[in-house]
């Protein structure tokens, strides 16, 4: 049924469960899976380009490692995992990538890393489920 799945991956417990679910579904449906990591904490309204570049390099190294681990996990499960790394607001970016890439299922963990803000503003999973152009599976 599903051909192209996008799993949001930030290394949190929820994201790891979502990744595991996506790998299972990929095997069931013979679907293509892409893991998306979003660099959410790039400094806004920066005073120097240097600050942005250094933070970006740090985030790329951090998320690069996470995605490498995800690829290894997928390889063990016998699934090809494509990976994407984007900068921006988590929910907005997930929805945008889902739309641009023509994905037919987005998987997100029930809770991500932005715990404190989520209590006030809603979780990334809630926002993605409201705005995504396709089905959304929130994994608990």
């Amino acid at each position: 049924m599903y051909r192209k799945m996008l799993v949001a991956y930030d290394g949190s417990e929820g994201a790891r469960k979502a990744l595991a679910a996506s790998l299972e579904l990929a095997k069931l449906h013979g679907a293509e899976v892409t893991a998306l990591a979003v660099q959410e904490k790039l400094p806004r309204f920066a005073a120097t380009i240097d600050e942005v570049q250094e933070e970006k390099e740090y985030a790329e190294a951090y998320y690069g490692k996470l995605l490498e681990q995800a690829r290894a996990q997928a390889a063990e499960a016998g699934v090809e995992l494509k990976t994407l790394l984007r900068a921006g607001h988590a929910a907005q970016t997930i929805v945008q990538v889902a739309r641009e890439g023509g994905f037919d299922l987005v998987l997100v963990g029930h809770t991500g890393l932005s715990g404190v803000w989520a209590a006030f503003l809603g979780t990334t999973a809630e926002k993605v489920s409201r705005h995504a152009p396709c089905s959304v599976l929130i994994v608990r």
Partner: protein
Amino acid sequence: MEQVWYTAAAWIGVALLASLLSIRLGISVALVEIFLGCIAGNLGTTFGWTIFQPTPWINFLAGFASVVLTFLAGAEIEPEAFRRLWKPSLAIGFVSFLAPFLGCMAYAYYVGGWPGESAQIAGVALSTTSMAVVYAVMVETGLNNTELGKLILAACFITDLGTVLALGLLFAEYDRWLLIFAVVTLVALWRLPGICRWFFSLWGGRVIEPEIKLIFLVLTVLGGLAVTARSEAVLPAYLFGMVIAGLFVHDKVILHRLRATTFALLTPFFFIKAGTLVSLPALVAGFGMLTALFLMKMVTKIVGIWPLCRLFGIPVRESNYTTLLMATGLTFGSISALFGLTHGYIDQAQYSILVTGVIASAVIPTIIAQVWFHPREVSLGLQEEPVVLGTSEHFLHMPED
């Protein structure tokens, strides 16, 4: 002596808190430092604390920070992109400086009743475009590697050049010292790329950092000459950054170490000091002027830049986006306002209005551009392909249908 350590501890404590908040909130450390500095300074005024009043050594660190920040901004130029897009970037960048400079200066002088030199500082501080704010937005939207992104960055560079030239030349004393400063600077700019290249290859790569010390030496010598000529030390710093930008393309390690030194020791003192001098009562009293100057900056940027973007064939939505990004400002605006306050061209109330206006221009146009005017002209080839990190081994694990 004991007091120096307590003062240093208080300022470094604020800098540390600002770093942690910056990481948690995803907002630049400079903005958080200004905000915390403002709170600390105003609490100090209310309760009679002296610990957050700038001292001579804090003033030196803050002043040196502004010079190094300007140097780093100068070193960000991409010569290749500028050569390719020189015509639109020069036109847009120049108008982006001139229109708000003249507009805000005229408003402050004729409507606000500010003295001539205060009005000039207002014009310079509000003429700026923040290359860093623009760059951060474009990294998020993936535009930094597109033609439109490079055009906007090159134009920002020209605007900043206009700002440092205005700051360096408007208030200078036109005498023999200015001539000496100009000649020495020109000769230095001509010879320094070669000297630095030779010096870096011969003495570089050591933990005692001879390269950074050479850069600091050049900045302090040229800065000293600039101040003697009643010019401003940021002018030669920006130009020096421009001429040795090429060296940093090949040697990222020096740049990384220079950034570490600057962010750890220098910039916190500049931005916290910039915040401590903002008077909240003055801000409340001058709220009308603040709003008017902010709107004047926005209007003059729009009137100046948008038609030029259209003239150079940039589509409407991208023109809106470019105009809004070029209307941002932060570092150079703060440097200009602090320069004005330090030299007595503006008072603390005027300074508070200008710095707040500059910060507002970093935040408001950025949000508007991101929310309503994000470019969507994919067919122009402006959009980057998503980065796919993966190796051939992954294709060996393709599921069999």
